[in-house]
């Protein structure tokens, strides 16, 4: 049998979503992959951020929350809010 196949080129399609555990942002209750109420575009223009407490929110949402508060605390767990540095993965690391 002389049959032999080999893949030369692969044109793949993937889609990305925010790697946040819950589906929706705890502040605006919109999906992470949608946009917050005052955002216009989903995706890159409505980024999702994590605090060191591992809770995730839309950047716009958490900023607004922090601005309205005297103390910078996570609205979920009341721990001091600090932005987690951009790291690979999210709350659960790469699998």
């Amino acid at each position: 049998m002389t049959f032999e196949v080999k893949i030369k080129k692969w044109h793949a399609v993937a889609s990305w979503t925010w790697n946040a555990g819950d589906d929706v942002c705890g502040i605006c209750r919109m999906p992470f992959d949608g946009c917050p109420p005052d955002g216009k575009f989903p995706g890159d223009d409505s980024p999702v951020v994590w605090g060191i407490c591992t809770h995730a929110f839309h950047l716009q949402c958490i900023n607004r929350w922090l601005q309205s508060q005297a103390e910078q605390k996570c609205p979920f767990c009341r721990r001091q809010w600090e932005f987690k540095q951009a790291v690979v993965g999210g709350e659960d690391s790469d699998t």
Partner: protein
Amino acid sequence: MASAAASGRRLVVKLRSRQDTGRAAEGQAQQAQLKEAISAIYASSPTPCTLEELFSGVESEVAAQHGGALHALVADECQRKAAAEAADLATAVALDSTAFLQHVVNLWEAYSSQLSLIRQVFLYLDRAYVVNHPGTLSVFQLGLRQLRCQLEALPHVHHRIVESLLQLVEAERSGEAVNRYLLKRAVDMLSNLRLYEDGVQETLLASATQYYSREGSALINELELAPYLLHCERRLGEEYERCEAYLGQAMRKPLKEIVDRCLLEEHLSTILEGSRQLLAGCQEQDLARLYTMCARIRALQGLRLGFRDYIRTTGSAVVTDEHKEDEMVTRMLLFRKNMLSVLHNSYASHADFAQALKEGFEACLNARADKPAELIARYLDSILRRGSKAAAQEGSLEDVLDAALALFRYVQGKDVFEAFYKRILSRRLLMGRSASMDAEKLCISKIKAECGPQFTNQLEGMLKDIEVSADIMAGFKQYVAARPSSGTLDMSVLVLTSGFWPSYRTFDCLLPTELLRAQQDFADYYLSKHGGRKLAWHSASSNCLVRAQFASGVKELQASLHQAIILLLFNEHEQLSFADIQAAVRLEEAELRRTLASMSLAKERVLLKEPAGSEVGRSDVFKVNPGYTSRMFRVKINNLQMHDSDEDSKKTNEQVLQDRFHQIDAAIVRIMKMRKTLSHNLLLAELATQLRFPVGQSDVKKRVESLIDREYLQRTEHGYEYLA
């Protein structure tokens, strides 16, 4: 004549000196002489003495206060002559119209020239006596009055004159050549005698009315509309010309009205009915003629409605023709182009007609729910796939897009279009079938004007993903090149932002290790660049270029990922059963069947199935087709997804329907929150302004029921109340 007048003037000085002598006698003799002179003038024979002498005779008589007697004398003489003329005419009534009229005109012209000579002789009477005695007629008027009275005293003569005139006019209308000069002189005579204005004109108009209503009723059935209109136009021209030539300016307006009324207004419904034929044939010149005629008789409203209804019925027939759905958009585009051209060239781009065109197209494109919107989206797809080639025969690509979107503008269910456009665009982009990114952007910017930025943001996001992916791939290539362990697989990845793209079904499948490793490499690279994300792979949208060594030679196969991974299995196995393949690739059964069928039952049969049959069964066994050949080096193995586009559109429609329910819910709640209480009808009216698609009564009722169940609303006596 002129010389007589000149010599008369020279004599005035001499005569005045005679008058100064104050001789008042010989009045009788003088009057007798004048009477004789009038008779002589009327008989066209020489006067008994010179005109100068007669003139001075008149002058002296008037000066002697005999003006009244003189006036009566002239009246008498004129009457006698006029009676004689009338009697003469009475003997000629048996002649045919032309000859009789000729006779009349000859007599008249002799009479009037004789009368003007008499007037000159009796000039002093006019100047000194008539002017000072209001109510008396001047000599010339007296002569005319007498003739008129005599004619009226003989009604059959009078009648015969008018009749002759009518006969000749009618003969000319019927196309016979007549002596226009004769007619003009006859009209002159009648109007000098004040007979023309008093009755003759009316009679003429009445005969014209009769003539044209007869003609209108006959021709409207006999002729097609176009020649009929041409005929009407010619008739108007003829009447106009006839007025110029002899009937007089005053007749122009009433005659025009008669022609308009008898030929057009009375048959308006037939004419408007016939205009459909003209529209169907795009007979722009004839339509322009019809337009100006309707404008004249103030029937534009009817023409406008006819235009609208023609567009509506003709367009609806095209739209609802289910057998020719593929051609619907092109047919409608052509139809619209024709109608626009009619609007500009025939209907003077009149704003009301433009509105009628819009109403007509709106009615026909909405004659059928949803389908037109879908077909327009598909038509745009075909244009954007072919790019400028599609536009070659139609002008620029932009014009083609504009025309298609103009059709879209008429469609009420914009959301259907949006859903289909998005789905089709995504397929076009994922399959790399778009002819030009610039054209895509152009089209989207045009849709933005129609649908608003909210919708096009997503489309723009999709295009942006394609561009960003190219950048990512450039980075990834460098990253791979820096790693010595990389394989020979040339991999490119489109990374989609999931919020922008329509949701596709994803299929799980087991990839060969080589592909898995490449996939993992890319994921590592991508996630290191973009924190906080995760990737999902869409194997159904992936495709591969596969190099295959057949017995007949080497081929390159353009295949889907699913096809490719099945083919790879045959590197190690001569033949495989359906179950073997399923175990190896772990693809969902329906998709696996479809994929196997595409390679063993469709056009390019690279696999052989046993037993042969028209469907893939669970117990089938597959092996590579040893006899596979193709004329081409590079072969595309079509996916069998093409034929399920019906299912595809059904799915999209369902999705649109679902979205509509949500939008109706949201709109109702928004309105009720603002108004607190509202009747059902007012709620419907408000909804119509808020929603971008037509809502059915029953849909609204259902949604209201559902909102009442969910305690957003409650019923009141007059309508609904919002529950906070």
